[in-house]
């Protein structure tokens, strides 16, 4: 069973369907599956629901799929810095389900580990709680949130071995591991595929069991807000 595919297009071949639910890794433009997003744009698949913390920016990341109107609904925590997203939402063209960031991450993890629902204090008494079951534990109110069970997961890792064991780099890890676990089929794109045995077995972030298809490619890795300081001249 070979997991390695030649390109993002090949890796997505035969598994994209209109109306499907996609879980995507990444935070802002950091650690996003650039190549898989581009291939989904090219495929023309539509009416997608996408669970992802953000939706990229107007012309990069998931913003590209918003521009082509392939997304019907977003499940996100933050949509600032994305004028087209806000325009589509406010005009009613795009559905938007707001999730607190931690709730979104936990919902993905829950789906990945077979947990259909869990209780959290996050959002109690706010709009987020509307229509959700409330339960009291130890005198405090909690709301029920449901696991996300996606059709496919699209994920960006730093390196993976040929069996899909993958590692992430710095804060590019973010939503990628929980997103990876919650899809029926998980496709990951990496900067480098390394031979089996070259990663430390104690230090793997995403075991290959979660990874069904794997590609290697060049990443732009655009920076959203370049903040720097001056070197102090002593």
């Amino acid at each position, binding site marked *: 069973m070979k997991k390695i595919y030649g390109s993002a297009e090949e890796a997505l071949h035969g598994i994209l369907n209109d109306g499907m639910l996609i879980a995507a890794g990444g935070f802002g433009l950091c650690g996003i599956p650039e190549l898989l997003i581009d291939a989904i744009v090219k495929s023309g698949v539509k009416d997608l629901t996408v669970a992802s913390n953000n939706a990229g920016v107007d012309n990069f990341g998931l913003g590209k799929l918003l521009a082509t109107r392939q997304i019907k609904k977003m499940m996100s925590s933050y949509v600032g810095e994305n004028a087209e997203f806000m325009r589509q939402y406010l005009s009613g063209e795009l559905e938007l389900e707001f999730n*607190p960031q931690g709730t979104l991450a936990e919902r993905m993890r829950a789906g990945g580990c077979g947990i259909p629902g869990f209780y959290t204090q996050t959002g109690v008494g706010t709009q987020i709680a509307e229509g959700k079951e409330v339960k009291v534990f130890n005198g405090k109110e909690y709301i029920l949130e449901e696991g996300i069970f996606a059709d496919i997961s699209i994920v960006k890792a730093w390196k993976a071995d040929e069996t899909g064991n993958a590692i992430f780099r710095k804060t590019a890890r973010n939503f990628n591991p929980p997103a990876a676990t919650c899809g029926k089929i998980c496709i990951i794109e990496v900067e480098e595929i390394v031979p089996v045995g070259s990663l430390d077995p104690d230090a793997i972030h995403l075991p290959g069991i979660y990874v069904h298809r794997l590609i290697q490619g060049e990443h732009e*890795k655009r920076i959203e807000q370049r903040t720097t300081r001056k070197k102090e001249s002593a």
Partner: protein
Amino acid sequence: MAWDRNQMAARAALELEDGTYVNLGIGIPTLVSNFIPEGVSVTLQSENGMLGMGPFPYEGEEDPDLINAGKQTITELPNTVYFDSAQSFGMIRGGKIAMAILGAMEVAENGDLANWMILGKLVKGMGGAMDLVAGVGRVVVVMDHTNKHGESKVLKSCTLPITGKGVVDRIITNLGVIDVTHKGLHIVECAEGVTREEIIAATEATIV
């Protein structure tokens, strides 16, 4: 005559306790890290997946894989640890973060906080703010006392959709420091040149 942004951040920095783990929000709260008192060592969490957040990088040393929750390029420190978003919010929800210092649009006298949405106008989303206010040990808000129309942001009750119910412990504004207690709002400190009466006059909520 009232604190400026840096003075507010400096005042907020006095809230930091040695040896704790702290989350700083976007805006004025980010400035707090410039005023950490000597002898106080805190570890900053960035909720996108790190503990031990360092300062901005030197020019040319930006790393696209290393950003904070405001999407700004940052650096790591010797004690830095990275983790995924589920674990990051696990530690937030689980009460492991001692304090969050956050910005706000409105705070109510019962501790309700609104900082994520202006209805029908500007949709940004709550990001991690709802998780933070629900999970951390202590919530300190830093904001201007009034909005650009001169209206109080400290209200009897929030007019905007709330981020959390009864979650704010302390409010630091350009006019002073106000605590949210079970008996109501209580002035702890006035900014230089500001009187108690001026704070009361600028506050829609009841000060007790």
